């Protein structure tokens, strides 16, 4: 294993004043990776990325070099690079900072990716709420065109490469790559049937690669500094640095860059340790859709393989940290509400299952749960997981399943007391479905008030 702990790689220009301006960026090695890539054969770039072992940073961890090599080169159709900047997973905010602080890095990455697969154009699909990142990127793209890094004659090579910034309209599902493509084409953002895969029929039916911001931003570094440099961090199967969004009950939540292989406990320390008087109870290693892990697993090295071994997923690299003063039921209810709300509605298990899970968890959290609800939750998760059209539903059931596995007692306690043991006021005013359109929909009425049981909240369960 390489060095661990905090590193400065992809984020090394974050604190350079004015680096979002192309002149400052150029002074800090800017566009050197693109220049190098231009001198290389496309296949060599892909090979280099393969050797680096870079794995996709958007959640699934698929080897990026392999993904680039899948792009069909012989269809006679134009080839596109699409950057998935629809960063919407709860707990994840690494891409936003990268685009805000160092937008040229992403543009350079898009150029390298384009060169690697002979693309004619790139599209950045940006989460619509990222207004500042959008302004930064738009300005940077304009500058890159002015300087000839983009456009009809990329860096004097005679090659054309255009870059388009597209702002999404606030749907989590559009982070799913085929829904993203549909949305980009102006359709309703819902996942597509696969096959055909984007590598053969993606954007506008043409070969396309869809990659996360961080994966694309890493390409110029790999091209410029080489495989050795990249592999100085991390493990054989999980090499490289990783941008981490660390959030929750730590002293300094925020973005950190660490070497893969750093343990979760170390990362909590890097983020300033747990808040005063709180002890780690559980954490989500890669955003809310990755199964939560209890405190005992905090010494797991943060690699794809070790986290998987521990029973979860690396996801987007969003470490969410929760203490013994937090109700796991409330957390899971909130997560579920998010996925229920963001389900695109296309397939039954996700649409209806999410709606049902949300109602049950709300009941348990607000004191009207039944013991049989726990088995029902587990069974519903079984009926959702792996049965839905895309991975959103699998992400939806992850927190429910994992919390039931590790903290079933706490659920029981909620149900037994009829109130949250954490002193959370039961909220009976939340309509289960809160969105209405065209006057046709009538929200559900508040649940029937129920006598609260007299036993007071005692401040929490020890975990």
């Amino acid at each position, binding site marked *: 294993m390489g060095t661990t702990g905090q590193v400065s790689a992809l984020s090394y220009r974050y604190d350079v004043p004015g680096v979002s301006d192309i002149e400052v960026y150029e002074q800090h090695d800017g566009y050197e990776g693109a220049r190098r890539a231009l001198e290389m054969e496309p296949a060599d770039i892909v090979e280099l990325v393969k050797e680096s072992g870079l794995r996709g940073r958007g959640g699934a961890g698929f080897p990026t070099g392999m993904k680039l090599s899948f792009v069909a080169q012989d269809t006679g159709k134009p080839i596109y690079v699409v950057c998935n900047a629809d960063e919407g997973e709860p707990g994840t905010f690494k891409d936003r900072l990268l685009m805000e602080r160092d937008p040229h890095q992403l543009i350079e990455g898009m150029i390298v990716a384009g060169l690697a697969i002979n693309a004619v154009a790139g599209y950045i699909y940006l989460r619509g709420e990222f207004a500042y990142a959008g302004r930064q990127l738009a300005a940077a793209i304009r500058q890159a065109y002015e300087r000839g890094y983009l456009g009809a004659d990329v860096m004097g090579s005679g090659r054309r490469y255009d870059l388009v910034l597209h702002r999404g309209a606030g749907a989590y599902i559009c982070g799913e790559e085929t829904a993203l493509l549909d949305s980009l084409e102006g359709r309703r953002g819902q996942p597509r049937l696969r096959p055909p895969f984007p590598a053969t029929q993606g954007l506008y039916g043409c070969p396309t690669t869809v990659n996360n911001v961080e994966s694309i931003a890493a390409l110029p570094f790999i091209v410029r500094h080489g495989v050795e440099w990249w592999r100085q961090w991390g493990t054989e199967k999980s090499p490289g640095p990783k941008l981490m969004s660390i959030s929750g009950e730590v002293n300094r939540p925020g973005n950190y860059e660490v070497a893969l292989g750093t343990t979760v406990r170390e990362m909590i320390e890097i983020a300033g340790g747990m808040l005063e008087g709180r002890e780690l109870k559980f954490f989500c290693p890669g955003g809310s859709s990755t199964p939560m892990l209890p405190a005992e697993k905090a010494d797991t090295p943060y690699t794809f393989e070790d986290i998987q071994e521990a029973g979860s997923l690396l996801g987007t690299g969003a470490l969410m940290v929760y203490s013994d003063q937090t109700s796991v039921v409330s957390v899971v209810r909130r997560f579920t509400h998010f996925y229920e709300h963001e389900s695109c509605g*296309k*397939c039954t298990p996700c*649409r209806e299952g*999410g709606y049902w899970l949300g109602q049950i968890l709300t009941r348990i959290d607000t004191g009207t749960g039944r013991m049989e609800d726990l088995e029902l939750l587990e069974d*519903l998760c079984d009926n*959702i997981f792996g*049965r839905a059209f895309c991975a959103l539903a699998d992400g939806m059931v992850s927190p429910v399943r994992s919390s039931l596995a590790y903290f079933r007692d706490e659920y029981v306690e909620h149900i037994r007391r009829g109130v949250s043991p954490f002193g959370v006021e039961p909220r009976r005013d939340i309509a289960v479905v809160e969105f209405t359109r065209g006057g046709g929909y*009538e929200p559900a009425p508040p649940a029937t008030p129920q006598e609260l049981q007299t036993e007071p909240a005692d401040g929490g369960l020890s975990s």
Partner: protein
Amino acid sequence: MTEQVTFTIDGQEITVPKGTLIIRAAEELGIIVPRFCDHPLLDPVGACRQCMVEIEGMPKPMMACTTTVMPDKAVKTHLTSELARKGQEGTLEFLLINHPLDCPMCDKGGECPLQDQALAHGSNASRFIDQKRRYDKPVAVSQQILLDRERCVLCARCTRFSEQISGDPFIELFERGALEQVAIYEDEPYESYFSGNVIQICPVGALTSTSYRFRARPFDVVTTPSVCDHCSAGCTLTVQSRRGEIQRQLARTNMAVNEAWNCDKGRFGFPHLTAATRITEPKLRDGDALVTASWTDVLRRIRSAVTAAREAGPGRIAVVTGSRLADEDAYAASKYARAVLGTDDVDHRTRFAPASERDELAGIVGRDTATYADVERAGVIVVAGLDPEEEVPILHLRLRKAWRNHQARIVVVGPHLGTLADLAWRHVVTAPGTEAAVLAQLAGDGPLDGSAGEVAEALREVDAPVVLVGERAGAGSISAAAALAAAGDGGVAYVPRRAGARGAIEAGLAAGLLPGGRRLDDADDRAAIEEHWGALPAERGRDLHAILTDAAAGRIDVLHLIGVDLARDAPSAELARAALAKVGTVIVQDLARTETVAGFADVVLPAAGRQERAGTTTNWEGRRQRFARAIDGPDLVQEDWEILVQIAAILGKDLGFSDLAALRAEVERVGRRATPHPLPTVDEVVPAVGTAADDDGAGVTVVARPLLLDHGTMLTGATDLLATARPATVALSPADAAAHDIAAGDLVEVAGANGSLTLPAVLAPDVLSGTVVVPTNSTDEPAGVLADRDGRLTATLTKVSSDAAEEVA
């Protein structure tokens, strides 16, 4: 041959072509995997997740509706796999948590896939104790279609149908998650000629029809197979009646013709049978009024009129049949005219056709013409003088299918594109009625430029193009189209609009034409028919134009109209009305009190409608289909052929049959000519270009084109259906509009030879300059009032008002 894949489903081995979906392969074995979103004619979507199966080596269940077959794999359905069974039950439970338990009052109850599957695979008790989704109900998607959103399982069948099949994507999924719902755009209503299909394919009771809602239960109705009589498409229908009243009509699957679809006119267009305008009893004219009479009285009246006309000399009786008749009626009418009345003055067309068309019609019969399947396969499809969506809607869907499936290049030959504007690849512009010349040029060797050159090039490239010729294509078009198709080993078809037109041609219902593609002036043909009918008229008779002209001049005493409203439908309303007024005895046998009946008929004979009788009908392909009696008509109506048998009898003749079986047996015996007459050569029938109407510069040529939903007799009473009719407009080119200072929406008076229409203007770049397009029969007066006595349509345009929007509304 396609690569074959062998594998097993529930232990049974099966071999199917590579690329087959598992759900289809299972069907071949008789294993029905439960499904909601899957529809064999729609693209797979995988939305409902009901059809899970277990596939060997795969940890998760797979969807049978989106997964193609894999060699040597063992597939296990819910019948043999616990994984699949559990998954399916889970999905079914999910679908039911938000579904209301209102089956007892839901129209779909009794024929509902969700109900059936809940019964077969579902649990008796629900584990769901929480709050179901609630919506306002119902929401009107259109005047014909209501939506109960809480029943919807969001299978996207309706939205996919609209997008993929009919191409009217104004019905869509909105919102997301549990609030995903079918809706229409606020400012764009769901306007489609095919909207009824979404009701039929809805797997729950979410989409219901206003006309059928709460009227009957599927297990309460009597179901009868039928064939639609609204156009020449020949769609197979299911008629469902209860206590002798039609409750609804559904598309009946017939992959060769209408697949699983039909148009709204065919689906909802049956209230005319019970409308107030329906003729239910025989009537005789008494001054301005028509008074009820007995069958005996009307038959006697006919006998005296016919006898008197015969005594007055030859050529004083004529028969015009229109084209709604069943094949049996057409045969009976053909024989009745020749063998009973002794006249060849007969026509089934409501247009003024050139004399040479007789030879073309004779040549069609017995010849292999293009079919729906040919259209579906063709790489290039040439359409001349025909607007399929307005005239033969199911043909439009097939054209669209070819366009969508393999980018078939659709070429329109004529003065405008009409509803093919969205699909057409090239438009070869011609003056109205001169389509034949262009078709001939395309088939010839001469150099062509512009669109015509590209089309000729495309026709040379593809195998088996299809050329479709409609009724407006002008003299010689059928021959020219046949020559064009033959040059590419393709197919040709004459596509008339009305349901009985092809059958009428087969029966010889035109002057000089005899049954089976025979000709009156061919000695062998005459002999073949005389063997069955006795002596035939010696000379070829008159066609519609000559009949009306002579009638208007007082040279015809008896005009027998069978299912035709000449006062509205003749090309020249003025000539037709003058003729009808002049003729001593106008005998009309029809379904409804048409303008002809009300204004001109002296003897009215009540006829049975399609659903009230059995019969045979031939569609534009030449495909014969039988239909059965679904309901009893009014007590005193008779089938058209029966009426003719009785008239013949009172005139002292025996038509030779007294029941349908005997009639059909005679049709079989008469048969077709052994070898069809050759079609005329192009040189014989195609007029030279440039000899058309002389142009004095001030007027425009008018193209009268029917709209699907108009003032037609068989649409009376279908209120909800007619609410979806397209508005009557005058379409003109932007250049002509500018020349006349007309803007879109302006009210324009189109003044013709004998009348005028005032219509809002639509600017259409596809319309040939100097030409305007108006609907045939969508205005108070038909477009026929614009014509002169030869049916020529020219007019002058005058802007009446530029504030059209309010006036029209």
